[in-house]
């Protein structure tokens, strides 16, 4: 009582204003949270429903059951045949894209940043133009060319497309990061008689490790999250990936949507795990550049 009386009157509105803005920002935060998680929640909702029960207007999973996941685990539907083999194909595709992008990108950025080669800046320009290009616009001629190369229907055609689209970003980021490593290191190694390959292998790659991780994760997620090229380039079930399995659900008349959303959740787990484990690396890479989805 006496506190309130002795407190300067001018402080009261200010305190209230602080409260109002706090409540407003908390409300905004909750709205943002709902906005972000609603489609993710819908995935769970449909996946946990019984087949045929998906669209009954419920906003909570009433008869929640794990039938969808169990069927997926046992490959218990004609649409789920060899699912885990195809999941393995997706992993192969992602890892191959990652390794090749890091290797090809780091070699090129090594030349760009650390070797005196006439006209090598053209490479940087080409990389920038390729990075900016919308990849869907290249899809039709790409498929025709894969027919010519005899790579159509092979996982390698998908890998080739993803490496081609991921490497430019890798080069730009690695070139940027490489500037932090003093050239004197290379020069002293050269004086000691090291070949460029030894400089690359012993100095460049170890010191570039954080950037190589960022670029590798980027390439892996790019390939994992991409749909169009897998859908167009993979025709037979031998080299099918999860994206192709999803596509089959749309072509089927009586698709069990709970199975499909179970696949969606299982397929989303690796990128989510990678995101939470390697957030620092990814955001550091992002702070220098953009990521194409």
């Amino acid at each position, binding site marked *: 009582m006496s506190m309130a009386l002795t407190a300067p009157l001018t402080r009261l509105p200010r305190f209230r204003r602080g409260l109002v803005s706090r409540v407003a920002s908390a409300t905004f935060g909750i709205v943002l949270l709902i906005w972000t998680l609603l489609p993710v929640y819908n995935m769970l909702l449909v996946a946990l429903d019984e087949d045929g029960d998906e669209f009954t207007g419920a906003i909570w999973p009433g008869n929640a059951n794990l039938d969808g996941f169990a069927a997926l685990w046992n490959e218990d539907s004609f649409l789920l045949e060899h699912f885990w083999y195809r999941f393995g194909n997706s992993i192969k595709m992602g890892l191959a894209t990652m390794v090749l992008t890091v*290797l090809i990108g780091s070699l090129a950025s090594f030349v760009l940043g650390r070797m005196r080669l006439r006209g090598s800046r053209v490479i940087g320009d080409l990389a920038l133009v390729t990075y900016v290009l919308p990849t869907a616009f290249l899809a039709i001629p790409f498929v025709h*060319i894969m027919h010519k190369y005899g790579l159509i229907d092979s996982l390698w055609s998908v890998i080739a497309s993803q490496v081609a689209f991921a490497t430019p970003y890798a080069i730009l980021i690695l070139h940027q990061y490489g500037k932090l490593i003093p050239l004197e290191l290379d020069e002293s190694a050269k004086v000691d008689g090291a070949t460029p390959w030894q400089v690359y292998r012993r100095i460049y790659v170890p010191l570039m490790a954080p950037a190589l991780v960022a670029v590798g994760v980027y390439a892996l997620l790019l390939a994992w999250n991409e*749909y169009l090229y897998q859908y167009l380039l993979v025709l037979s079930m031998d080299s099918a990936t999860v994206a192709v399995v999803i596509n089959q659900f749309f072509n089927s008349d009586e698709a069990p949507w709970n199975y499909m959303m179970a696949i969606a959740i299982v397929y989303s787990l690796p*990128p989510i795990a990678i995101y939470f484990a390697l957030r620092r690396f990814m955001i550091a890479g992002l702070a220098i550049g953009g990521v194409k989805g």
Partner: protein
Amino acid sequence: MSSTKHALGFGRSLPLDEWRRPSWRIHQQGSDTVWALAFLVPYVGVFVAFVAYPVVFGLWMGHDPTLYGLLMSDPRFADTAINTLVFVAIGVNVTMFGALLLSGFFMRRTWWRRLLLAVFLIPWALPGFVVFTSIHFMLVTQWGLLDSLIRAVTGEDGPLFLVSTPIAMASNIVAYIWKWLPFWTLIFVAGRMAIPQDIYEAADIDGATGHKRLIYVTFPLLASVYLICTLLDTVWTLGDFPTVYFVSSGAPARTTEVLATYGVREAFDFARPYLGVAAMMSALPILIPVVLLLMRRVRAAGVQL
């Protein structure tokens, strides 16, 4: 590195003269040139075989003028072109402006905002075709989650989202914003963090606080980044495929297609690949100037993409 460049270049900037100037001062021996060429072979090989050749082949596929006459005679193509313009104009600008504002919200590093940022970024990490399928299921029939929620809150039936062309198109745009808002917010957070604190302190002494600080200090310093991001997103959104393909899937009756989905459908569902390429190439009159402008801005600002 000057502080302004720091602010413009998200932390590390790339002055272009540095890019041009070979950095290794030691004279190159002949064998080193061979090494350098050998190191470049894999990238140049990939570029020629999987980028340059498809580009040239695509240009050749779409070079026949009669294809464009055919396109013009398809009323769906006119719809598609208009849809694409609307999709890009609204999608890109709302995303960018929203991201700019949200980045301010996330700049206050209280614990719950950090946590919220981590969750808010989830759409960016998720595979597009998976989440867009989920959004499609939210909208489809009157029993999708969104209609069920509307019914639970208001007691009345919501719209049938994928039956009306404008609502279906709006759904595509909202889904696009949902997926890409987090990514660009993060970019602008990085851009804001690169603005040195002493600039704000100086502005504070000059009396620029609150919204004045935002308008006279933060926005001008972010202007270059904002323009480049907008141009970049314009190019990418022009060629966006998964959003429309999964969310509205062209429904109702192929009235909500955009260029990428129209082209792919023409090429592979209706076996008219040349027409599909021509549809996508009709974006070139917008694409080429934007890309040129973008490259110039990147050079001028020294911003590394």
